């Protein structure tokens, strides 16, 4: 077995002992050593010449880094509402029982731990888990048994059946983006237009950011290009953490030529020579394949110096891995994370286009946004803008999951109605659709004529369908837990507010809530929206608010008639006494819930 210090030494050497590589170093070290022991943390801090607290801050920020032993097999069940609907809870319990573990506990022999994690982006093929960050899809009871057996005999992950790790694209509908691109064609087209010409086409296209915010991409490119300084960066935001979204996984898996050439075109227009792909830790399975794509691009002159023979067109791409943290999808948090720090959103202004990665002008754009640049290069902005609506040009990828016959990726021109998508995906009777993920909006049948567009229902593309048997209260409660888990902790309203919101939803779920709590939930949603530091906190109350406004009975049937019920549960307060006395008989419980 490798000496820990050798592992650390090699990781430090690979990253030239650069403190901005701290997160990458920690990830790589943990892949070999399974956790970051105190002495490992100290070796890394010493090797980088930084205080130990900087290493501890990073380890404790990211969900997939561990400062306590978590076993050689670290199993995480994706716990998005779509995984719940596919029965992940029973499978989770089954695995815990088989391995004789409690949630989050590490087995006595150091073999395994089993816990829950936020949406892993496999909603169309769940229930899904991660084993040492590698995705396993379509979990069944049988597959759980097989995994438990592989863990029991200590089979290396590389020897597990390949079909466990099979991830489908599930492309159900294509327009222009989900079509093959001849390697180099988009680059040649951009070069032929020239840097300014390509910039003009970007602006003419009216392409807007596909991450959900809809900022005009050409304006962003221009801002970064015009910012003072010689060094600029392009960041491809592949931290697809919004629950219910998985389109970027498909783009990176099967359309990487579009994504990578789109990044190079962005670099060409902006005057950047370096690009990063910030790949979420949950997509670890894509890392090697994407690296091969980058390497072969470089080998064929589509990356590197003088791309396609164009003098001065120098651009290269590096993959940075995330390590579990929804907030890192926020642009400024992502740049912090790229710099090897905890992903806490920065104070704005200044904006990224003037002061971004390492203080240099930086363009952070969604995977899908950058992929569209290849279309604009080839056909021109005016042609691109003919698709979609006047203010929402081009096509949009929609990630459909939940109660429908054909979950997967659908490409539509902007302006498509929600009803049309439901029809195409084979949804039966529908109670509601959550569009835009946990931070998005809950849409009811009377709104199904509304359109997917920045001017109507604006979304990064998550589309979760809920049938007549689904309990919208539980949907909202799942999202409330999600935000409490993912809040970065920087600002008071989000750090504390998301926890309070979660606790209130739990209290109502236990049948101990009253109108008092309902009123508090409404106030909290508005309060977090108005006072939070970033989009995470601003949207953390949306799902609960929408559920309250549109599905009030789902709350009311759980409420007590009284004006107020105390937070303390006498029944729950007896639990320590029951544990101490090893009793669980009827006499040890209260008849009536306090």
């Amino acid at each position, binding site marked *: 077995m490798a000496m820990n210090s050798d592992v650390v030494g090699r990781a430090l050497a690979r990253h030239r002992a650069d403190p901005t590589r701290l997160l990458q170093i920690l990830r790589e070290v943990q892949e070999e050593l399974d956790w970051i022991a105190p002495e490992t943390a100290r070796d890394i801090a010493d090797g980088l010449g930084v205080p130990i607290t900087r290493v501890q801050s990073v380890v404790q920020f990211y969900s997939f880094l561990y400062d306590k032993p978590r076993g050689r097999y670290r199993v995480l069940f994706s716990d998005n509402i779509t995984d719940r609907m596919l029965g992940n809870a029973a499978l989770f319990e089954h695995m815990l029982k088989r391995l004789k573990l409690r949630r989050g506990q590490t087995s006595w022999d150091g073999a395994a731990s089993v816990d829950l994690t936020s949406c892993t982006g496999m909603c169309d093929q769940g229930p899904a888990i991660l084993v040492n960050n590698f995705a396993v899809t379509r979990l069944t009871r049988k597959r759980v048994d097989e995994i438990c057996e592989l863990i029991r005999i200590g089979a290396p992950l590389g020897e597990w059946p390949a079909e466990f790790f099979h991830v489908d694209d599930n492309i159900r509908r294509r327009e222009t983006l989900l079509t093959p691109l001849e390697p180099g064609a988009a680059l040649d087209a951009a070069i032929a237009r020239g840097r300014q010409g390509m910039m003009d086409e970007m602006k003419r296209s009216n392409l807007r950011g596909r991450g959900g915010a809809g900022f005009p991409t050409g304006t962003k490119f221009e801002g970064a290009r015009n910012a003072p300084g010689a060094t600029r960066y392009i960041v491809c935001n592949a931290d697809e953490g919004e629950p219910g979204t998985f389109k970027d996984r498909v783009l990176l898996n099967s359309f990487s030529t579009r994504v990578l050439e789109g990044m190079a075109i962005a670099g060409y227009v902006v005057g950047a020579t370096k690009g990063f792909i910030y790949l979420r830790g949950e997509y670890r399975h894509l890392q090697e394949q994407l690296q091969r794509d980058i390497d072969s691009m470089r080998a064929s002159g589509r990356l590197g110096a003088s791309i396609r023979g164009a003098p001065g067109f120098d651009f290269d791409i590096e993959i940075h891995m995330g390590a579990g943290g929804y907030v890192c999808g926020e642009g400024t948090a992502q740049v912090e994370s790229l710099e090897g720090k905890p992903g806490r959103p920065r104070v704005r202004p200044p904006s990224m286009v003037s002061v971004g990665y390492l203080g240099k002008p930086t363009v952070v754009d969604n995977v899908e946004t950058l992929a569209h640049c290849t279309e604009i290069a080839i056909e021109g902005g005016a042609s691109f803008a003919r698709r979609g609506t006047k203010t929402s040009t081009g096509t949009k990828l929609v990630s459909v999951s939940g109660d429908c016959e054909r979950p997967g990726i659908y490409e539509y021109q902007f302006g498509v109605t929600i009803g049309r998508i439901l029809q195409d995906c084979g949804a039966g009777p529908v109670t509601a659709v959550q569009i835009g993920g946990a931070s998005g909006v809950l849409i009811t049948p009377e709104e199904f004529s509304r359109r997917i567009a920045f001017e109507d229902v604006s979304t990064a593309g998550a589309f979760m369908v809920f049938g007549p048997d689904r309990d919208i209260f539980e949907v909202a409660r799942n999202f409330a837990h999600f935000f409490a888990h993912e809040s970065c902790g920087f600002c008071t309203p989000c750090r504390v507010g998301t926890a309070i919101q979660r606790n209130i939803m739990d209290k109502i779920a236990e049948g101990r809530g009253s109108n008092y709590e309902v009123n508090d939930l409404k106030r909290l949603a508005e*309060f977090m929206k108005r006072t939070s530091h970033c989009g995470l906190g601003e949207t953390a109350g949306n799902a609960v608010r929408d559920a309250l406004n549109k599905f009030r009975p789902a709350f009311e049937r759980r409420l007590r008639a009284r004006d107020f019920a105390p*937070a303390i549960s006498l029944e729950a307060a007896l639990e320590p006494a029951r544990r101490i006395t090893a009793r669980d008989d009827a006499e040890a419980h209260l008849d009536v819930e306090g």
Partner: protein
Amino acid sequence: MDNEFTIDEQPVPFKPGQTILEAAKAAGIYIPHLCFQADFKRHGGCKMCTVLVNGRTQTACTHKAAVGQEVDVNTPELDAMRRSLVQMLFVEGNHFCPGCEKSGACQLQALGYEYEMMSPHFVELYPSRGVDASHPDVLIDFNRCILCELCVRASRDVDGKEVFAVAGRGLDAHLIINSPTGKLVDSAFAVTDRAAEVCPVGAILKKGVGFATAIGDRPYDRESISAEAESCEIPEVR
């Protein structure tokens, strides 16, 4: 005057580059704050200084003043938000004012009075946090930490020691200490550090002087926290 904006419809001058909070302070107008102190890098995390700038909520400690801006500071709605923020900070930690030697000199307590907080309103979270009494001169009671990061900034930017940092996410965010044992005594910290002075609450306390000033005679016993604006400086809270 050219460089002028308004706070609650009163004209306020500013120097280019000044934040709304700085300009207000210079003009003797009080805007509440916890994580801001003039000597340190802006943080913007506590959100107590939330104001309306042309109708939109902004943190006054990070938002630059600009010509013609209309800033609202004292509205019933903003005061209610501030009260909620104070209540959240109270329920997040373990704050028992009657037993705290910072009582009367604590900015969180003073803001509770300022915004007429009559109850915690939210259900207490009662976190399980410890105390670090290892250092001979200074005690840290993590139960009272509000994560303002003033000690982090003071130690890093003024003392040049980087003794403190925040680790963990969400509600698990907590102060950590840069030393081999994680204890303050084994760190480079000294009682003469600026970081020993800046805590706005009772988390970092000098030993042996806790009751040198009697309760009742302390800064916020004598006058409300909003009175600080009149002297344009933060009262002595030692």
